[in-house]
């Protein structure tokens, strides 16, 4: 529940109209966004593979940091500096709305939030496992001052096998789907990754076809390409992690099979030895 509350407040705080008007958001978390997300994910990071940890670093340094430190100031004046060659009131608003249904910045923020969410699945499963094991421990031993054992339970690192493997693999698949989905959405909404300098618009109330000029199109193109590249690197890391997990599981399965075969061979040999002993 605390995870979900913080998650909801995080998502709400990303949308500027809600920042000022919605009092619930200010009560929950006025400025809790990217650092809070980082804290949540780093906690869940303990049970990741090393590729997962690399993915998290790439996500925070090359995507979240660049978004907050650089990209937000490039898109800061996107509506105020969107000028159309007309004095007709309302024409600029309408044309801006037609060509920019959702701003790049909001799309990226949503993408980062959605892509980080599957890690919560893993964190929730680990919390459930710890809770279950704690209960078992208390049932078996009662409350005989087992603080040390409970501490080791909290601090231990679970091996990625069984149900945790499936949860982890599912979270990776969801991450990939969200990344690909958002990149496709950006490509479709903005017709590619390049920002044009000039768009021509003839929506009502514009009197006829007017030229509208976008501010800083080259800088926006550079950052769009940068974020797309970082996104693809993250997807490649996720695919590599998935392949690694599957390979490890297959390897484990083969080892287990070999062990079972050798065990059954041993048993057969023991039985034949016993029979030969009995018969003599």
């Amino acid at each position, binding site marked *: 529940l605390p995870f979900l509350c913080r998650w909801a407040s995080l998502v709400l705080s990303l949308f500027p109209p809600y920042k*000022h008007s919605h009092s619930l958001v200010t009560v929950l978390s006025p*400025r809790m*966004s*990217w*650092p809070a997300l*980082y804290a949540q994910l780093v906690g869940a990071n303990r049970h990741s593979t*090393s590729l997962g*940890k*690399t993915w998290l*670093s790439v996500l*925070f*340094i*090359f995507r*979240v*940091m*660049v978004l*907050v*430190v*650089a990209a*937000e*100031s*490039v898109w800061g*004046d996107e509506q*105020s*500096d969107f*000028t*159309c*060659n*007309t004095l007709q009131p309302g024409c600029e608003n309408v044309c801006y709305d037609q060509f920019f249904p959702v701003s790049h910045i909001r799309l990226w923020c949503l993408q980062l939030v959605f892509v980080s969410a599957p890690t919560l699945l893993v964190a929730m499963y680990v919390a459930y496992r710890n809770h279950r094991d704690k209960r078992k421990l208390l049932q078996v031993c009662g409350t005989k001052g087992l603080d040390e054992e409970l501490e080791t339970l909290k601090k231990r690192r679970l091996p990625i096998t069984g149900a945790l493997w499936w949860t982890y693999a599912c979270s990776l698949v969801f991450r990939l789907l969200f990344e690909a989905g958002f990149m496709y959405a950006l490509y479709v909404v903005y017709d590619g990754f390049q920002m044009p*300098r*000039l768009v021509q618009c003839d929506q009502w109330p514009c009197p006829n076809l007017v*030229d*509208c*000029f*976008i*501010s*800083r*199109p*080259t*800088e926006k193109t*550079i*950052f769009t390409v*940068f974020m797309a590249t970082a996104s693809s690197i993250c997807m490649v890391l996720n695919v590599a992690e998935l392949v690694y997990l599957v390979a490890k599981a297959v390897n484990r399965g083969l080892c287990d099979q070999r062990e079972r075969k050798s065990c059954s061979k041993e048993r057969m040999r023991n039985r034949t030895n016993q029979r030969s002993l009995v018969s003599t």
Partner: protein
Amino acid sequence: MPLTPPAEPDPEPKMNWASFYAVISGVNRHSTGIGRIWLSVLFIFRILVLVVAAESVWGDEKSGFTCNTQQPGCNSVCYDQFFPISHIRLWALQLILVSTPALLVAMHVAHRRHVDKRLYKLSGRSNPKDLEQIKTQKMKITGALWWTYIISLLFRIIFEVTFMYVFYMIYPGYKMIRLVKCDSYPCPNTVDCFVSRPTEKTVFTVFMLAVSGVCILLNIAEVVFLVGKACSKHLHNAGDSTMGAWIQQKLCSF
């Protein structure tokens, strides 16, 4: 213009450079002395100056860019033509990219600690005290860690030099001009466009360039120091080996 409440000063960007500092300075423990000096120079003379001073100089770069025409759109187009990417963004990207190789070293150290922990457990020493000791132990820069460190330094130098070159290509001469002449569509003919605060921008550009040069020198000095240390260690230990004796003989003959 719709009525919007005045924007509160957003602490987010500063908070993020601060959390970036927390992440990077963790690597500090495994650096050499020169590495720590480099990190301090990076944070004090580059990131702090960027956030505290340079961002306000470039704050009104677009709104203060005025062209001698009332043609709508001419301002935007001329600004875009002469400033494809702002200095501030280039510096932010440079600082982020230049600091990332340090994470390679951090990852290597974490991997080594993991391996040491496993060895300890296998040899039977799974005392929590011993395991804690592994965490707080300072790794010596030898073996594979030495190579990781050198590679990270080389990447740092390459990124710094690349960004300085990119700067020079986009803004030749590092000087900010007062006046640019522009004739892209829809400007009616060649119009004069005036850049805001050109002298202040030149001063900060030269300052950041100088500090960047100092950082490159520190990195080169660190590489030389590490290579020198490794060589001297080899010569010291190679008293028995023929190669060491040969090198010593050659050195003595000079």
